């Protein structure tokens, strides 16, 4: 019969996260004396429990335990275990636990204190956060190493291969690279996307629009000037491109070689676009920036 420590090490060498049922838990985690501490995840992974968070937390926990197992600072002072509700429900009753997942740290000496329960609501279940909590409680630093994600470079390589093969196939007819209109259009798209605030959307992740729960009215424009909705940026993008298009039309009307009637129409359309969409833009700006006193054609 191996000593408890030896038995734990044996299990840990097989799997990073030791799966425990009620009896194992009582013998190896609860029973004193121990010269190791255990971090236990109480979870409910069976499909009928429908605990989505448990699955995500389980993945992070696995990453954490694997990082520990393969790290150079591996000692036998700490072990990672998990108890599933369906295998050890008596433990759940004993510890008065009614939510899952829960992470608890059982120190080698003494009873677990309040800080030995991980605050999942406040900190989240990212492996790095759990590792910091463990470092807080035990002075053991687990360096979280995530398995390298090859999806990104693979996609990039694939994309380059596709582009390369297309260029090779058309190598006698590379005229499309010299098309000024295409380049100008691409540059314009990029610029318009940037000035409508898409980077802010990318970083802050706002909702598309806001539906007022009381009145049911959908507002596409955020009330304050500190934030914006995705719908709002699309509107601004449209307006900006309309004004730009109007200016280009004006120029084309004056310099192109088409007949006079068409040119007059282009000219009027151009100036109309510029003035109309700019006034609209100004009115949206007024709606957001309270106290702005100017408007052009409309309020």
């Amino acid at each position, binding site marked *: 019969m191996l000593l408890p420590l030896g038995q734990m090490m044996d299990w840990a060498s097989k799997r990073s996260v030791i799966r425990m049922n009620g009896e194992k838990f009582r013998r190896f985690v609860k029973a004193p004396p121990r010269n190791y501490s255990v971090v236990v995840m109480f979870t409910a992974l069976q499909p009928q429990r429908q605990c989505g968070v448990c699955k995500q937390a389980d993945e992070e926990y696995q990453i954490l335990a694997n990082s520990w197992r393969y790290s150079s600072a591996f000692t036998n002072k700490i072990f990672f275990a998990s108890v599933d509700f369906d295998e050890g429900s008596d433990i759940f009753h004993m510890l008065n636990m009614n939510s899952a997942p829960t992470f608890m740290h059982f120190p080698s000496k003494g009873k677990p204190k309040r800080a030995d329960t991980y605050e999942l609501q*406040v900190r989240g279940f990212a492996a790095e956060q759990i590792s910091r909590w463990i470092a807080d409680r035990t002075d053991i630093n687990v360096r979280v190493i995530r398995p390298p994600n090859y999806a990104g470079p693979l996609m990039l390589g694939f994309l380059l291969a596709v582009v390369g093969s297309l260029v090779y196939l058309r190598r006698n007819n590379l005229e499309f690279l010299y098309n000024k209109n295409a380049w100008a259009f691409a540059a314009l798209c990029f610029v318009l996307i940037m000035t409508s605030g898409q980077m802010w959307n990318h970083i802050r992740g706002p909702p598309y629009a806001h539906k007022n729960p009381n009145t049911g009215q959908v507002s596409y424009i955020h009330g304050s000037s500190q934030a*914006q909705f995705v719908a709002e940026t699309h509107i601004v993008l449209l307006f900006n491109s309309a004004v730009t298009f109007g200016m*280009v039309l004006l120029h084309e009307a004056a310099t192109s070689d088409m007949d006079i009637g068409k040119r007059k129409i282009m000219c009027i359309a151009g100036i109309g676009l510029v003035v109309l969409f700019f006034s609209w833009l100004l009115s949206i700006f007024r709606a957001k920036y309270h106290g702005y006193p100017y408007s052009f054609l409309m309020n």
Partner: protein
Amino acid sequence: MELICLGHFVLSHNPEVWILGELMLNCSWGGVGGDSIHRIHPALECHSLVVSLSSFLLRFNYRSTHHLTSNGFYEFLNWFDERAWYPLGRIVGGTVYPGLMVTAGLIHYVLNLLHMTVHIRDVCVFLAPIFSGLTAISTFLLTRELWNQGAGLLAACFIAIVPGYISRSVAGSFDNEGIAIFALQFTYYLWVKSVKTGSVFWTIGCCLSYFYMVSAWGGYVFIINLIPLHVFVLLLMQRYSRRVYIAYSTFYIVGLVLSMQIPFVGFQPIRTSEHMAAAGVFALLQAYAFLQYLKDRLTKQEFQTLFFLGVSLAAGVVFLTVIYLTYTGKFSLSLMRYLCPPPRYAKIHIPIIASVSEHQPTTWVSFFFDLHILVCTFPAGLWFCIKNINDERVFVALYAISAVYFAGVMVRLMLTLTPVVCMLSAIAFSSVFEHYLGDDQKKDKEGLGPNIKSIVTMLMLMLLMMFAVHCTWVTSNAYSSPSVVLASYNHDGSRNILDDFREAYYWLRQNTDEHARVMSWWDYGYQIAGMANRTTLVDNNTWNNSHIALVGKAMSSNESAAYQIMQSLDVDYVLIIFGGVIGYSGDDINKFLWMVRIAEGEHPKDIRESDYFTPQGEFRVDKAGSPTLLNCLMYKMSYYRFGEMQLDFRTPPGFDRTRNAEIGNKDIKFKHLEEAFTSEHWLVRIYKVKNEGSSRTSSFLRKARS
């Protein structure tokens, strides 16, 4: 074409204090075939002028310039400031960009040599408006090189009044950006000129201007990456020519040597990854030129084999060198932090960077606010540039695309976008006006008719007038008041000036010992050093994160733990900002979480952010707040005696107007501190640290002095 001049300033009620707003006036009179005379006339009235240098950062610049003019240039370069970052001190000479101070010092020296006695403070205050005039001139020159004279004039007018640039160049804003944008535009003008002419004269001029830019602002990295990008794209577009070769080779070498003369830059241009693009393009250009040379002298077969051999060899060598240098650590691959949105990287790793509000991404409202109609019309200018492409228009297209990306990521970089937006919209407007303003009697094809043309012209002019009016409004409302003095408006519209900051700093100056050390959060460091003239522990330079974390830890711990830290740092006074009486939302309690986060980064065992929240995860200052928060030093210092104060009859005593809550801990007593000063509206509170028991008579400096 006569263009409209514009100037604006705002006077305060108090005749002794001037709050100068936007200042730049740029008149250009362009006659038919005449020269354009640029006159700068600020319309100042003759009151006695005391302009407070607004904003925290500028006090330091002014103090350094003062040091320069009093002690000489070499003293300035070797200056070790022991009154900042106590007890570490700060090597100022090696950690600042000296361009600003040297420019102000030089102007002061020249004026005094001509027996025009001007105080250095006045030079500092008016430096930015003068340089914005020079910026307008260089923008004119640059746009004239790119398009034509009419567009140049329009661009100069736009940049003279556009709010995006005014915000950093008001009178009183003595900061690097004021002169840096001028240096940027001038360098770009000289670069475009040298690419067009291919003469070494213009290129050396460009290098000298680049040297000035390197001495002025950290944003020189933008130039040293944009110019190589331009050359690279020219190579890709098969627009290689002798002119490009001469211009870039000369620029790279001479510019490199000159940029390394600044002590702060040092050896960075050959070590860090931000400068590697320039070196790479230089090598590539040499290789390309060599291949062109060989092409003329070899047959096609020989050339092809040689080409393939050469390219593979070169690629292999470069690859191995980069790997070797990265492996041995001589090379820091930090380029990704410029391309990826900085805030996400910074939020996780460097809380100090993430906490600055100017480093947030930009909403479309900021774009519109700072640029108004220019932001809608500059894509049209970009379209025209690309459709009629030549060497220099490639440059401006690249400038626009890169600047717009960076401006979208960080609000602060809107400043680098402003010049190119002005130029491109000037091009757009100019192309339209060119065809709609003139007479079409000489044209062979039928014109659009004078009616339509005049309607179009009138509407365009109305839009431009709206732009001018918007700029005036923005500058007077948003960028006009120095942030040292707060202004609030009463119900009847009259303005109420809150001068608490200056009151407190002058109290400090007059009522404390000259060598007293003041602990406060880093935002106020430069102000305390400048206006109160006392030694500070941390300031806006934020170069030492652990020292700031120590201050943060002292503010977030309970009184006894904080007292130990304060004793170890020899602190005499503690200064905090409290906005609960007037509802000021920029006070230290609102910044408190950043103090906790920064402290937690260095001392994770002692400070935990979660301790300061309620079990439900809320940050509350009332009775339901977390006990750690209610007993920490910052809380006690902010709300000492506040529990007895009843602001009006509708709210209970101790009602914090900023947090809209009644405070939880009203009976506050101190063991190791005593209240020294509270300003009129309780904005600034200063506490004295009692030194009981152990003799703290000798600090490092006193020992050193004896």
